């Protein structure tokens, strides 16, 4: 007696689910994660990867089976069955993807909100939408004081670094110590807030290991707040076409343990301020 088709289908479905779960969880396509939220983004990616592998394998398998099993044999000039549709089937393959998509949307919204992507940047007390909206339409009294988009927990306690993008370099300014460098140093495990602005055209600040990218648009200062959690040197890459040397517009971020970072800060702080590190804040 042949095995019933429904049993075979069920077995194939379970096998497919197991394969895609295994692939999604065990094949790592991402670079090393070096910021707190990077692992959360990677978790989302693993879910997307599993779903994607399952869907692609499933559809490819159906396609291959159809091509092999239903190929026209020589001499066969008959038609296939005149099946014109199947309403329950249509409802099924409309509803299931719709539900999956909505769950995915809520999940990624949650991650993004936790990263600080939904923050109210201009610290209006409540009811943000009308004012934020107005600001983004380019109509504020002083556009340079408005923060445009970005990612920030809006806690205000993060260590600030000013980032200026220009053709074809990133310049970093440490406002509390009042010095400028071409290489970004960050303390490990401490929240930082990059305050980004551009001098000429649109650039984008990207550190793949942090899973963070922010366009830096002239006239629209923005912020990027995160916590680096792994020591090492990582590339800062410009990700928005900015001119002939766009591909060469790179810099380095060095994530150090807090002590080495403090030493680096002191070493680079101009002498007058170095003796009294707090003076720049009061000035």
């Amino acid at each position, binding site marked *: 007696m042949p095995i019933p088709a429904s049993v075979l289908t069920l077995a194939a479905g379970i096998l497919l689910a197991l394969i895609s779960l295994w692939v999604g969880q065990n094949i790592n*396509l991402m670079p090393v994660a070096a910021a707190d939220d990077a692992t959360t983004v990677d978790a989302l990616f693993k879910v997307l990867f599993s779903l994607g592998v399952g869907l692609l394998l499933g559809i490819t398998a159906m396609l291959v089976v159809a091509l092999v099993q239903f190929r026209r044999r020589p001499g066969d000039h008959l*038609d296939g069955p005149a099946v014109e*549709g199947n309403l329950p089937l249509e409802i099924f*393959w409309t509803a299931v993807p719709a539900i999956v998509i*909505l769950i995915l949307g809520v999940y990624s919204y949650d991650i993004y909100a936790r990263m600080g992507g939904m923050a109210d940047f201009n610290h209006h007390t409540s009811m943000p939408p009308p004012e934020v909206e107005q600001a983004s339409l380019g109509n504020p009294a002083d556009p340079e004081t408005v923060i445009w988009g970005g990612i920030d927990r809006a806690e205000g306690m993060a260590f600030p670094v000013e980032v200026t993008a220009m053709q074809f370099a990133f310049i970093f300014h440490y406002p509390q110590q009042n010095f400028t460098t071409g290489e970004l140093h960050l303390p490990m495990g401490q929240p930082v807030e990059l305050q980004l602005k551009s001098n000429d055209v649109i650039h984008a600040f990207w550190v793949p290991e942090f899973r963070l990218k922010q366009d830096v648009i002239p*006239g629209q200062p923005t912020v990027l707040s995160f916590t680096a959690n792994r020591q090492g040197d990582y590339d800062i890459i410009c990700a928005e076409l900015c*001119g*002939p040397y766009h591909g060469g517009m790179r810099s380095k971020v060095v994530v150090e343990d807090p002590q080495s970072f403090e030493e680096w800060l002191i070493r680079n702080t101009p002498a007058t301020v170095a003796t009294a590190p707090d003076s720049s804040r009061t000035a």
Partner: protein
Amino acid sequence: MDVQHHTPWHEYFGFSLDHKVIGIQYLVTGFFFYLVGGALAGMIRVELVTPLSDFMARDTYNQVLTLHGTIMIFLWIVPVVNGAFGNYLVPFYVGARDMAFPRLNAVAFWMLPPAGFLLLSSYFIGGAAQSGWTAYPPLSITTPAVGQIIWIISVLLLGGSSIFGAVNFIATILKLRRPGLGLFQLPMFCWAMLGTSVLVVLATPVLAGALILLSMDIVAGTGFFNPALGGNAVVYQHLFWFYSHPAVYIMVLPAFGLVSEILPIHARKPLFGYRSMIYSILGIVFLGLIVWAHHMFTSGTPPWMRLFFTIATAIIAVPTGIKFFNWLATLWQGKLALNSALLFCCGFIFNFVFGGITGVALAQVPFDVHVHDTYFVVAHFHYIVFGGTVFVIFAAIYHWFPKMSGRLLNEHLGRLHCLLSFLGFNICFFPQHWLGLNGMPRRVAEYDPQFQLVNQISSVGALLLAISTLPFLVNVLWSAWKGAPAGDNPWRACTTEWLTSSPPPVENWLREAPLVTEPYDYGSAEDAMSVTTVRGRELWSAGR
């Protein structure tokens, strides 16, 4: 009396009003620019064989990538899926002898070659535009003005041509249908062209407006998008993507329509879920208009916008998914002829599903923040427009070449072309996902040496793709001259373009236009036949 004489050859080089001639003019012109755009892509892949910028000058590289994108979109895919197949097929499908406005139709085509050669000429007079096909200000304001202005004029001409075509399709489908032919009896391609044309008419003028403002910023020193003069660069991005996201559907919806025509014929089954196919087209048209800001998740857009556009973008996968499930169901239990047309359609299904999956992933803001503007995105949209639409264009050429020329294409060369295209395409673009995930941004002439091997694999795929064009060219040229005669209806199809000679006479049918109320009347259920309506099956049986 030989009424079915062939259209004289010089007709194809003149201001013909025949929709079939115009369709073929679009097809051949588009294919010429495909070869040009492909050569430019080849130059990009040669540059990327090594991590250094050592093959061409850096600003030349940016010109090449700008021309490549602009040509492939505006001079190959949009004109061919809309202009070529739309013009050739829509009048047949509605039972008309030509388009509603034949003169406008010819004007729309004849805007294409000047626009294309204008664009190419810019390279030789001071250099082509070098700000990418997106032309984001302020970069597009600060790069050399001549190339950028010529680019704008050229895209405005092509957009105008596209709008003229769309108006013509809407009028033809709604007003020129043969008496007795209802909207819900039309072949799916007509619905796809109707939906596409609505998108063209609603979205293209917005692009035109944005480009005119941009040109003023460049030549007249206005400050619409120039932050140095108080302008807002992000407003341009909104206007640009309000057209350019629907442009993706302008490129894929007609391809969806073509697949819906090709599959049932070679699977010998009705199109599965006719009504749900129509509703999913309408759903894609509607949703396609409200997802543009997903191209701007890192552009400092307000938070509510990111939430809204994430959900709207991902939900487009639902109507799109319906179409793919319906096509699989169409194939299931059919009698599949494994010819070039059907195999290219299957390649399309695989590639597009792949691109659709990465598309849903890209819609998720936290993930998009990482891969936006990287090679992951490059891979994604090539899976959509190349693996998707271009594969369908080839399927459609294999399917309709016998009707257009009266001769069959060689199937061995066709299947070789399909195999090489599929392998070359996937070798070229599959590894690029990894490049993007691991830190290679798009539009760069130089990159981190750790990516060299994978870039070389990708370039080998590109070489294979270039080679895959050879059997196709040989096949078309040889078959047009010496191919086996096709007869009127080599595929035993029901739709009206097959119910006339190959190639068809000037006004499509010598007698009255046939009325086909069930264009997918394949299948062996005899009892489903009605005696009161004329059905496709009887027509093709009678025609044999």
